[in-house]
């Protein structure tokens, strides 16, 4: 029995480990892209334009002769800032809103929950687009738009988690001992709601990266020649007939990133639910 369990545990852990390894590589390339490539992402070389993938240029070169591999590596910095930054902002605000809703009286909770529910009915990308429509395009708008778009999901989970934790015995004990409402919230409820939220945030990083890349693909974020994944794709769109590699490789990396965060997030969900992975 235990042998079978051990094998299954290992099998379940493999995707999560692979995902973690990929994300670690991504973080490393964001911090120090020069470790992986010697090519300059902005260096143009007309003589080397639209070269096929080769040993020198693993992802080929673009219309200006820039190395696509190096552009993708340097682009991971931008995408990870959007991914982690927007998720962190959304997590912080979502936790505050959700915990506040759960601690309010029936009317306040009802109004907040209803509002969250309505906003949640729209997918993140549509919401981010609406926010950009209101605050205008630009690099910092992109971060704000993605953060606002993913926030309601965190607020909802934070609210439910807070309600669950609040019924727990140790909260009743704290209340019986006369601990004040706010300090119960800060010292007991919030720390215990964090587990499931962190699993969700791991998945959310991928969603945020994809939404950010989509917005900059539409030209609503950074401007060329910034090495940003969505922007590289949108430039590659014009050269699809002759050079598929410009658009295909950065998209593949975005997809791999989203898959990796999903797998790791699911794994953390199992762990935080108290089950063996």
């Amino acid at each position: 029995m235990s042998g079978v369990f051990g094998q299954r545990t290992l099998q379940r852990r493999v995707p999560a480990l692979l995902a973690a390894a990929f994300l670690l590589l991504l973080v490393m390339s964001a911090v120090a892209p020069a470790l992986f490539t010697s090519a300059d992402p902005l260096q143009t070389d007309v003589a080397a334009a639209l070269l096929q993938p080769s040993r020198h240029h693993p992802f080929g070169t673009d219309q200006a002769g820039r190395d696509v591999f190096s552009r993708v590596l340097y682009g991971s910095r931008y995408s990870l800032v959007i991914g982690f930054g927007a998720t962190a902002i959304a997590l912080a605000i979502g936790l505050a809103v959700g915990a506040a809703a759960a601690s309010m009286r029936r009317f306040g909770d009802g109004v907040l929950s209803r509002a969250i529910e309505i906003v949640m009915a729209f997918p993140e990308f549509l919401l981010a687009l609406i926010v950009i429509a209101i605050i205008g395009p630009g690099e910092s708008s992109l971060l704000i738009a993605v953060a606002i778009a993913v926030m309601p999901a965190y607020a909802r989970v934070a609210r439910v988690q807070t309600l669950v934790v609040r019924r727990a015995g140790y909260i009743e004990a704290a209340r019986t001992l006369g601990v004040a409402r706010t300090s119960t919230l800060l010292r007991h409820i919030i720390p215990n709601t964090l587990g499931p939220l962190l699993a969700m945030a791991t998945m959310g990083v991928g969603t945020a990266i994809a939404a950010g890349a989509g917005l900059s693909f539409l030209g609503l974020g950074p401007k060329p020649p910034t090495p940003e994944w969505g922007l590289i794709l949108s430039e590659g769109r014009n050269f699809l007939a002759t050079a598929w590699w410009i658009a295909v490789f950065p998209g593949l990396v975005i997809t791999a990133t989203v898959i990796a965060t999903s797998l790791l997030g699911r794994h953390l969900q199992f762990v935080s639910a108290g089950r063996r992975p």
Partner: protein
Amino acid sequence: MKNSEQHTSGLRRRTLFGRLGGMVLVVWGAATVGFLALRLVPGDPVDVMLGVHADVSESVRESVRADWGLADPPIMQYLAYLGRLVRGDLGTSYRLQSPVADIIGAQLVPTVALMTLALAVALVLAAGSALLARGARSRALLSMLELFAVSSPTFWTGLVLISIFGFGLGWFPVVATGGIAALVLPAVTLALPVAGIISQVFRQGLDAASALPFVDTVRARGATHARLVVRHTLRHAAANSVTLTGYIVGSLLGGSVLVETVFARPGLGRVALNAIINRDIPIVLGIIVLAAVVFSIVNLLVDLLADRIDPRLTAPAVYS
């Protein structure tokens, strides 16, 4: 049991008027939040109308503002805006100087055609995979495909499909030609992530339904797997996933902005994108209101549809 179900269904019908009221409230809320938010936008609408570089005197600007009612106090502008909205007038575009309703109306058909075909493709893919995935191995493969479909960004899938089926094999036109062939790749692109989501929820619903006792009864009668799924468990799964409809419509709407850009197709997504880039506030507001109306109608229909899909809500359950 029967009584309580009838009670639930009666409650549903009684609150139909309440639901219509809720619809109006959501649309009003969207219009108001949109109006307020767009009031806070920095920049002068006159710049948008005349172009930032237009060299016009302040008196000309004043007269333009007066013409467009922009000199009135905000509360008057808001009331005038609501008044026009009630009459179905969405205002006039700053840049194109023509009614927003006309601009949206002219681009509605290509986007609705795209979204409808994409939804059909997504439903066929999701239902097909629900029928085919039986063994542990095919289910594992399917869940991998679902993860891939949900995770790959629409704008990338579109470009990959163009390279393979457009430039590579030459099966489909690369740019919008207006024909139905030009609609295939965009619709498949838009459909894939939606199919992934529906398929995931379908499968969870099917698994839950397969654990119910009636499945044994149906199997004991000698029904095939396909019949069991199509006639029985799929219905349970569908009742579950109907609640996703609002999200799916939103996915299609947001995705159409990307897909129309990838395939250089005309449509509502392009109108929205241009309005966002050019800060053409009346068009942006018009699209927000339209989205709120569509969203409310869809949710109303979903609630009414739930009764039909799940007969237990209206009649005692008889599976024969």
